[in-house]
């Protein structure tokens, strides 16, 4: 069935994927809108990659349905594939071929592609066009992967952990490339475990934990709903065994709620800036030797609130 260009480019309805007794994707429903950057945030093993691979036609669902650009992911598989771009998590391509040759291969696989030079120019890869893929740094390899996905002129681009393993500069560069895509008419589905990446790029985000989507909205709405607007982080001295002293007591009394990610740290979440600011001053007055920070709440706090844990840099829950 041919699809008209819908407002929702991806529609997922009760999608499920099981491997034996293990449920990787558990009855998931959501929509992705045209020309947005949609973030899929979750720890390793949450089912993010399985979910996007279902949408890419790389896996078959156990139950449920989904359409991409109005095409059913099972019945119109190759119509879907012809209009999406994919940068997999563990991206690799022909390493002895140059950047230009790899992009040219992708161009020839699609029905309505862009010119190779256009993509090279858009991703600032002109200087590396004739370099073998295997000789590139991790950042430029990832950028080549994005170029290979973009040469098909996709309506939807799936980026699975696009900055994992990159140095900070390369991450920033990749973010800039991703950020400009909606303006060029490409909807981006960004899968990541980096909170800052979601905060920097995503228009809307779905929090995925244990195969299910626990929350879905804009970053600002999620922060407001789950994390308040401001938080105070208190790092306890090592001599404090249980942290049950005056500072901790004060924080518990003033904050809307508190979390203790580990025995040396406590986080208080506040709904308004004024209360948080006063509490911050009072805590410093009690004992200036404590490390006390006043920070705006973010996705980490949202995740902590929703999933009951936070993530380390490798994407594992802690």
């Amino acid at each position, binding site marked *: 069935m041919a699809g008209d260009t819908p407002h929702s480019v991806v529609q997922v309805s009760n999608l499920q994927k099981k491997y034996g007794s293990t449920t990787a994707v558990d009855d998931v429903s959501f929509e992705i809108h045209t020309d947005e950057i949609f973030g899929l945030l979750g720890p390793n093993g949450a089912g993010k990659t399985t979910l996007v691979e279902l949408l890419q036609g790389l896996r078959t669902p156990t139950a449920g349905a989904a359409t991409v650009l109005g095409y059913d992911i099972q019945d119109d598989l190759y119509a879907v594939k012809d209009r999406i771009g994919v940068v997999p998590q563990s991206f690799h391509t022909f390493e002895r071929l140059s950047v230009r040759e790899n992009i040219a291969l992708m161009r*020839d696989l699609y029905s309505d592609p862009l010119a190779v030079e256009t993509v090279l120019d858009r991703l600032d890869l002109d200087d590396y066009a004739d370099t073998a893929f295997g000789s590139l740094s991790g950042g430029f390899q990832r950028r080549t992967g994005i170029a290979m996905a973009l040469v098909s002129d996709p309506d939807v681009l799936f980026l699975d952990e696009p900055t994992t393993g990159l140095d900070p500069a390369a991450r920033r560069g990749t973010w800039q490339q991703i950020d400009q895509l909606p303006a060029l008419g490409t909807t981006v589905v960004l899968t990541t475990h980096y909170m800052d990446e979601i905060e920097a790029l995503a228009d809307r985000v779905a929090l995925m934990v244990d195969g299910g989507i626990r929350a879905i909205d804009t970053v600002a709405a999620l922060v407001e709903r789950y994390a308040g607007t401001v938080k105070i982080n208190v790092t306890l001295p090592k001599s404090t065994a249980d942290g049950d002293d005056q500072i901790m007591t004060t924080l518990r009394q003033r904050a809307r709620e508190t979390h203790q990610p580990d025995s040396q740290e406590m986080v208080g979440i506040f709904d308004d800036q004024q209360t948080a600011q006063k509490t911050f001053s009072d805590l410093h007055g009690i004992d200036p030797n404590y490390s006390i920070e006043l920070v705006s709440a973010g996705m980490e706090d949202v995740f902590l609130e929703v999933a009951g844990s936070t993530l380390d840099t490798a994407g594992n829950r802690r």
Partner: protein
Amino acid sequence: MKRLASLTTTLLRDWFRNREAVFFALVFPLILLLIFSTVFAGGAAEFDLGVQNNDVNETGAPTPLSATFVDALERAEPLNVAHIDSDQDLSNADQIAEATGHQRVLVIPNGFADRVRAQSGRVRMAVIRDTITRTRGNLTDDQQTALDQLQANMTAQAGSGDSGSVEVTLLLTPDDDAAGAVESILDSVVGTFNDRSIGVEEPTTRIQTEERGAEGISAVGYFLPAFIVAMILINGVMTVPSAVASFKRDGTLKRLAATPLRKHEWILANVIQQSILAVGITGVMLVVAWAVFGVRVVPGPLSIALIVLGAIAFTALGMMIGGIIRDSGSAISLGGAIALPLMFISGIFWELDLMPTKLQQVAEFSPVTHYHRSLRQLLILDSTAGVAGTFGLLLGLAVIFFVGALFVTRWQEFD
């Protein structure tokens, strides 16, 4: 079609830039071709032999019978005969090589012809006497009396003159490793000469000789088709699965599967790539065979079709292996476990006739045997004997393996 062409081009580029693949697929078979064709191109060994004929008449010319004997020596192919003057005195020569320039010398004595004739006469008379003795019981008294008289005269004649065999002397240096072989050859020549001198034209027993193997084919003529097939087999069953497993492991295949490329196009592109390589590398091997060994082979449409069909069949088998195995090293091992025994039992490295009979029977079940045999028929012998069957066999295998590759290759649910 554009997808197929682009992917095939990509695979070819990737192959040409892969040094290991180029070595194993092109350089390795070429090295084998050069080594095997050189080693086995020498044919039978030749032995130098100096001959001094002392049986000459007053003018110095050899007697007819001694000349016949020397002629028999010259006709013996393993011997490279050189003539030494009869006035060269070898009776007291300690160093044969220094005296004659040859490591070994055969000396024909003076009176050789007379003694051969005498000895021949005695042998013939003995045969006649024996015949008379055997038939005596069937004769009349008068006939018996006449025969007794004749036998008495023959006995008297046989007893006169020199008795015993003629001795020709083979002078050797002590360190002559080939002495045994040369003595053997001389025994054979002398035996033949004795038979002729006695004049028994119809011996009661004959030795039937039977020739087998690639009659009239040079070593390079044998090994060229064999190593073309070896190259196709190694490429298809070892290199292809290794590459496919590697693409599967590093995510390249998954990336391709996320595009509009179909699974059958992926398999087909690999098959086309290997077919193009097979024809190209065959061309290189033919040029090398022509340049190094002077063997000029121009493949016709049938031989090219057979090369391509074999490449399709064995590449499809390789795609099957690559579809099953995830690890590149394991894929090479499994491919090797199939390809190497096939090559050994199919007469790639040596002629089938050199193998035990049981193994020769087993080899007939190997498609590789029929493949290189038919390729030899087409390329070297300019014959189509048995080729149709091989086309059918390879076509059947190509279909089976291609369907098998389609079945085992994952295009979804990657690990």
